[in-house]
């Protein structure tokens, strides 16, 4: 019996395992389906990682390397090339690797499986079905792990960060990126990536546009039709622009990978597609915690690693102590806030501050984020110059202000 099993050795899993180890937890196992640790960071050879955590600018593999080197010095057991096939609410983990199929168990589990990319099917883009359409991350893997480029004349659908990064990467590799097409009137990527990956390379970004048809010649993409959409995403007829190209990269969102969580009976939040979590990253199943992109899609690996620490501390506590909370309150979100993490809070707790993160579904200028108690009284305020959907927003709520709350708190935003 392990004290802790961590599923996934990306930034979330590695940071969680390291923290648990530092806290003195003894029997820790990290299970990774790939042949090496690092997760998606291994293919993210661009820089921009580590600015918050290490106060220096690292590439993805370097960032992962910081954790990998450290974890190798510990007694944490790492199982590579191993797939978790199933998980149950009793914390039994069914694993498959070249040594066999077996059932193992742990006192606590941390889910750190990350996320996957949304595909063409998810948005039902019509047209031909030849080759040349890839999710941005898949193209990135071909490029950075295998050393091959997927195409030479590229249109990118969606302005998610991976798509933006790939726009720059493909350009540097000699491809012509003809357009980045975003259905919303705002980007879903980081502002710094819009600047550094598109603007610096004169790649046009078409807001309020989408691909309405993909045409193939000899079973490979030969052109796309892009069209303008209105506020309700209806295609505006007559706005079609034809762009000859051989490649379409999709950067249309990420979905937390929670098939194992569902198998264990964990309650999933339909908004985040991740588990409903408490302030300590515990899921609805006691002793199963989660962190990173399996919970909600983060912008920065640094924040993933920080969230993982929180989950690890809670898991350590769960293994060694009886829980002492008395009640649970809900965290509610009012539009334009799409969701919050956590969705629930244990009370009372020792911590002084609770991190609440969320995204909005539209761009807001000068505004105030407010927290109200169940009586409707505003108990704290946070000023922001802007809040945009592409960047995860965070506030710290003082526990002292909600100590006596019995039901819920509500997070909302008011524009100035």
């Amino acid at each position: 019996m392990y004290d802790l099993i961590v599923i996934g050795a990306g930034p979330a899993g590695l940071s969680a395992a390291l923290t648990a180890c530092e806290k003195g937890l003894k029997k820790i196992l990290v299970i990774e389906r790939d042949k090496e640790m690092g997760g998606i960071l291994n293919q993210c050879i661009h820089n921009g990682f580590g600015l918050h955590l290490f106060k220096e600018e690292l590439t993805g593999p370097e960032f992962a390397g910081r954790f990998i080197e450290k974890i190798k010095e510990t007694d944490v057991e790492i199982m590579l090339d191993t797939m978790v096939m199933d998980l149950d609410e009793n914390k039994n983990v069914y694993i498959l690797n070249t040594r066999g199929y077996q059932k193992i168990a742990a006192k606590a589990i941390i889910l750190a499986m990350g996320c996957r990319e949304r595909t063409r099917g998810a948005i039902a883009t019509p047209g031909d079905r030849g080759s040349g359409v890839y999710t941005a991350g898949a193209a990135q893997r071909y490029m950075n792990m295998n050393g091959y480029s997927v195409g030479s004349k590229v249109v990118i659908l969606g302005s998610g960060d991976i798509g933006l990064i790939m726009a720059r990467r493909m350009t540097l590799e000699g491809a012509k990126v003809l357009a980045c097409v975003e259905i919303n009137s705002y980007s879903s990527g980081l502002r710094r990536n819009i600047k550094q990956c598109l603007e610096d390379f004169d790649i046009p970004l078409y807001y309020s546009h989408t691909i309405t048809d993909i045409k193939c010649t000899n079973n490979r993409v030969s052109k796309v039709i892009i069209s303008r959409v209105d506020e309700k995403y209806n295609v505006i007829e007559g706005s079609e622009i034809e762009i000859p190209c051989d490649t379409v990269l999709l950067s249309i969102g990420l979905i937390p990978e929670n098939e194992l969580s569902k198998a264990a009976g964990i309650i999933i939040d339909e908004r985040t597609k991740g588990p409903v979590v408490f302030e300590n990253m515990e899921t609805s199943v006691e002793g199963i915690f989660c962190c990173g992109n399996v919970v909600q899609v983060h912008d920065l690996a640094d924040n993933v690693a920080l969230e993982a620490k929180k989950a690890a501390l809670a898991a350590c506590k769960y293994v060694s102590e009886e829980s002492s909370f008395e009640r649970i309150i809900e965290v509610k979100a009012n539009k334009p806030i799409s969701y919050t993490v956590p969705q629930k809070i244990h009370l009372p707790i020792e911590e002084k501050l609770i991190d609440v993160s969320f995204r909005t579904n539209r761009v807001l200028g000068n505004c105030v984020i407010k927290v109200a108690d169940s009586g409707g009284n505003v108990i704290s305020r946070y000023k922001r110059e802007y809040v945009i959907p592409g960047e995860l927003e965070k506030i710290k709520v003082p526990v002292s202000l909600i100590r006596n709350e019995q039901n819920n708190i509500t997070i909302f935003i008011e524009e100035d």
Partner: protein
Amino acid sequence: MYDVIIIGAGIVGCSTAYWLSQYEMSIAVLETHNDVANGTTKANTGCMHAGYDPQPGSLMAKYNVEGSAMGKQLCEKLAVPYENCGSLVVAHTKEDMKTIEELYQRGKQNGVKELYLLDEKQTRELQPRLSGNVKGSLYAKTGAIVDPWQFAIALAEVAVENGVALKLNNEVKAITKKEGIFTITTNKDKYQCRYIINAAGVYSDVVHEMIGEKEFTIIPVRGQYFLLDKNEGEKVQLMLFQSPSQKGKGVAVCPTVHGNMIVGPDAETVESEDLATTAEALKYIKEQSKLTMDCINYRDNIRNFAGIRARSDRGDFIIEESKSVKNFYNLAGIASPGLTAGCAIGYHVIDWLNTKENFVKKQNYQETRRKIRFKELSFAEKNELIAKNPAYGRIVCRCEHVTEGEILDCFSSPIPPQSIDAVKRRTNAGMGRCQSGFCGERVAMILKEKLNIEFNEILLDKEGSKILMNKAKEGDY
């Protein structure tokens, strides 16, 4: 020189090859594409219809009912995923009720067994999730679902094991006949034979007219689909059809043998083999499906595709010797229920050949196929297999839990895959919710190694569908 050449390796051609390969004769199959089952056979609902739909007395009725009866045992023999889930035609109005009663009578006439007319309560017991206002339904217990490409691949694989020569990438360009011997010229080669079986699907009229007179016309009818995640698959217990009306046949909402939900098809006459999906048709299907089930979450769609049905101008299957060319047998116009009928159509080709001369059964022939599907094995069987070959302990496709061992297996099968999608059709790798986002690259690298090809020769599916174009500047990694 072959005794028989079959043109086309869809379900009909493969089934014909399978059954004929049990006889003493030399056979070749010519296929345009780089894999079998790469046309109509790979893009349909995957239904084995019970047989209440075709007009009594038609060839469709005959072969549908016979194929439906054959399906289960044949799929068992060939290790093809098959599930006898049954089907419902759901009635929402008084007229619908009349229609399903007619279908019931028609089914009886066609010899369909286990047909029942159900009231609302009985209907909902079988299929709890249905849109409101259900009046009743026609329940066909013998209706089943099947993995359509596995079906054709399995038939073809056994045929090849029995000595059939499968010539992929051979598009028929011309046919001549001299002194009773046909010469078929393809883009690659010339082949000679004494009998031709025309199973060229959408192109069967074109192929026939390469040597014969115009006896029929194929009208390509495109049908589009949504394939949804397994989350949605759980909502549908059996095949759900809408009551046909003057407005059309409606769209079906069905489970697949893989656990997904499939919704479609519409029916649109097209000029050529245009397999594009269109915004209008997808919108129509979405709307139309609400009549059957209003709780389908289309955000969980994982793929859209279109298939072409080869409808003949006679409105029925064409299963006959050409009137203008002796020893040329047409299996044409095999539109729906062609997947169901396919195995029976192939079964009876020998009847025609034996009116010409006497072909006898071989002493020894293969009838069955084995296939390892790791995830279907028991705990102990899994470990046994991994002990023998550790590649079964390595998952390549995360969504569908397909092992490296299963993928390597298909390279030593009688018809090794030539593309990423060919691996998908054989193993399910890439069929899942991430649509090969993760495993596509792994499968591509296995293909590169196993086929000993360059990176820029790796194909997604059909000829020309290259997935990689250039080396990165840094060179080989």
